[in-house]
């Protein structure tokens, strides 16, 4: 019989950070109607205020662990840490957007509400404990991003970007959800801990459900692989990143990846760690992750060398970075390394979030009002016209390469350490070698800024809010590089509420 749950049994308290963002997005949608057209920056500050509230609420719930909504949603340190990354990213992105939107003439209130909706989708996704919730959160994350990518309509590039993202995103969601259906068919449940228990109880070597499970988890991986843009599901990334407004690109290159990897790590570590085909071997999906991670870092880094547009270059660089995070996911397939691997992925995402936001923010400052001017030549001579901006960009480029004293180095260090712990030595070697290759194209931007003549057109977009965002990202990049203990301290004491 259907039972109506009591309000207490839902235990909504632990979900307040994600819930508050979702509710505030709905409220802001109405409030925005009463804000006059020329004062839309008020909507931005209201949206940012909502994120600050959620951030504070997240600090309170950070150390609590427990499930809400009858096991559909789980609050633990992993989700709390991811929420920190997502909320800070969202806040910086909103602050960056205020002047930028005005400058390129698309200042509309919906932009900020859509941002809040996609942020709440990400937050639900990293704390989802059930395949149904992951699916709904994935769509809540994606659908506003399709609209945001096309926000510059009727600019044909932006519309094309939105259309491509939409078609491939919907295609990927269909794969994900079919995979979820097959996993349900194999196990009879969509709840991740229950999937884990069911799989542990089965003798997979002679169970007919193993084919369903194999196919199902494979399709789930394909669906999430599209979202985080790993090879061979990366083809949409450069086009979408180039065509979308740069503030949106900056946000989605970090936020959508955080959401996707949050769900991927949770599915793999909580749901499928015991999915072992041969007795005593590592999880069946480790080999696949290994190959995808290696292919992703190699392709991302080598194709980035050939790029002339900085937005496209950063798109390929973001593919490469997804590959490094996927290395940590692959490492989680070895029994006992799961926790360390998840920590490495979290640190890497945090480091990458600040650095990448900063790099895109500098690109926004250099960009012209009509959306052009993001080629590598447009950075020529930036050190003369905007010395501070050039120093910041150098910092971000070095951090993306992984030079010591920057956050990027710490991220890579943790990921390679986890990979070695898991016994995947060749993968770690590939990681180090491709990092060296990546220096080639990152340093090229730095050289252009310092050793080429200025074209005379200085970065007009460097407005006060954007500058603050760049300074904050730069400070965080350095701080995490010098004192990584700030981030690692937050991960201590068990990441997942349900440790298998």
């Amino acid at each position, binding site marked *: 019989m259907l039972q109506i749950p009591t309000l207490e049994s839902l235990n909504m308290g632990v979900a307040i950070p994600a819930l508050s963002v979702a509710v505030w997005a709905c409220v802001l949608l109405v409030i925005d109607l009463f804000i006059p057209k020329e004062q839309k920056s008020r909507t931005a500050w209201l949206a940012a205020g909502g994120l600050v509230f959620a951030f504070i609420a997240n600090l309170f719930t950070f150390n609590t662990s427990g499930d809400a909504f009858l096991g559909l949603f789980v609050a633990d340190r992993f989700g709390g840490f991811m929420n920190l990354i997502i909320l800070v990213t969202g806040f910086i992105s909103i602050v960056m957007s205020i002047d930028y939107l005005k400058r390129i003439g698309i200042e509309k209130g919906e932009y900020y509400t859509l941002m809040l909706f996609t942020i709440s989708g990400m937050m639900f996704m990293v704390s989802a404990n059930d395949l149904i919730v992951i699916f709904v959160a994935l769509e809540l994350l994606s659908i506003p991003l399709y609209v945001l990518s096309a926000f510059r309509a009727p600019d044909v590039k932006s519309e094309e970007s939105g259309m*491509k993202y939409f078609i491939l995103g919907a295609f990927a969601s*269909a794969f994900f959800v079919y995979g979820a259906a097959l996993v349900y068919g194999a196990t009879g449940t969509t709840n991740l801990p229950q999937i884990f228990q069911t799989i542990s109880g089965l003798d997979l070597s002679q169970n007919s459900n193993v084919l369903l499970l194999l196919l199902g988890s494979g399709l789930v991986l394909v669906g999430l692989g599209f979202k985080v843009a790993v090879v061979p599901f990366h083809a949409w990334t450069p086009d979408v990143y180039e065509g979308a407004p740069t503030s949106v690109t900056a946000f989605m290159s970090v936020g959508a990846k955080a959401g996707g990897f949050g769900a991927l790590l949770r599915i793999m570590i909580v749901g499928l760690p015991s999915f072992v085909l041969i007795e005593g071997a590592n999880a069946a999906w480790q080999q696949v992750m290994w190959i995808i991670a290696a292919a992703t870092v190699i392709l991302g880094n080598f194709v980035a060398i050939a790029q002339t547009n900085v937005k496209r270059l950063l798109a390929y660089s973001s593919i490469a970075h997804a590959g490094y995070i996927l290395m940590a996911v692959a490492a989680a397939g070895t029994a006992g390394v799961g926790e360390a691997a998840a920590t490495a992925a979290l640190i890497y995402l945090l480091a990458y979030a600040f650095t990448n936001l900063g790099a895109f923010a500098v690109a926004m400052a250099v960009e012209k009002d009509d959306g052009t001017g993001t080629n590598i030549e447009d950075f020529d001579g930036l050190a003369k016209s905007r010395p501070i901006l050039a120093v910041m960009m150098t910092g971000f480029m070095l951090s993306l390469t992984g030079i010591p004293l920057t956050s990027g180095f710490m991220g890579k260090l943790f990921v390679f350490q986890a990979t070695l712990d898991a016994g995947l030595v060749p993968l770690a070697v590939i990681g180090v070698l491709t990092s060296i290759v990546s220096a080639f194209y990152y340093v090229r931007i730095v050289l252009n800024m310092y050793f080429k003549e200025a074209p005379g057109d200085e970065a007009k977009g460097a407005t006060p809010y954007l500058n603050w965002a760049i300074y904050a990202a730069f400070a965080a990049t350095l701080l995490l590089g010098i004192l990584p203990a700030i981030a690692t301290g937050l991960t201590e004491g068990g990441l997942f509420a349900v440790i298998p």
Partner: protein
Amino acid sequence: MIPTEMAVLLSVVLFVLGTLGVLFKRNAILVFMSVELMLNATNLALVAFAQQWGEETGHLFVFFIITVAAAEVAVGLALIVAIFRTKKSINIDELHQLEG
């Protein structure tokens, strides 16, 4: 009672048809319909599995998928209309401003 295998087999056929449609159709609306076909194949599989396991999670999942598909339709058709206004075409092969 229809055996689960038959229903799942049909859903696989529909899913593959949808996938082929997305890959080979050039009209944005047809591509979009193919995605819907994939989602409905999923619904069929879920209902079949729910019947096999004798519990209702699968049925619930179907409701969520139907709702989300409706939201996707709204955004997708809006994008198609916007593109049509600018380019007077919804052939996805003609979307090639972004290459390099």
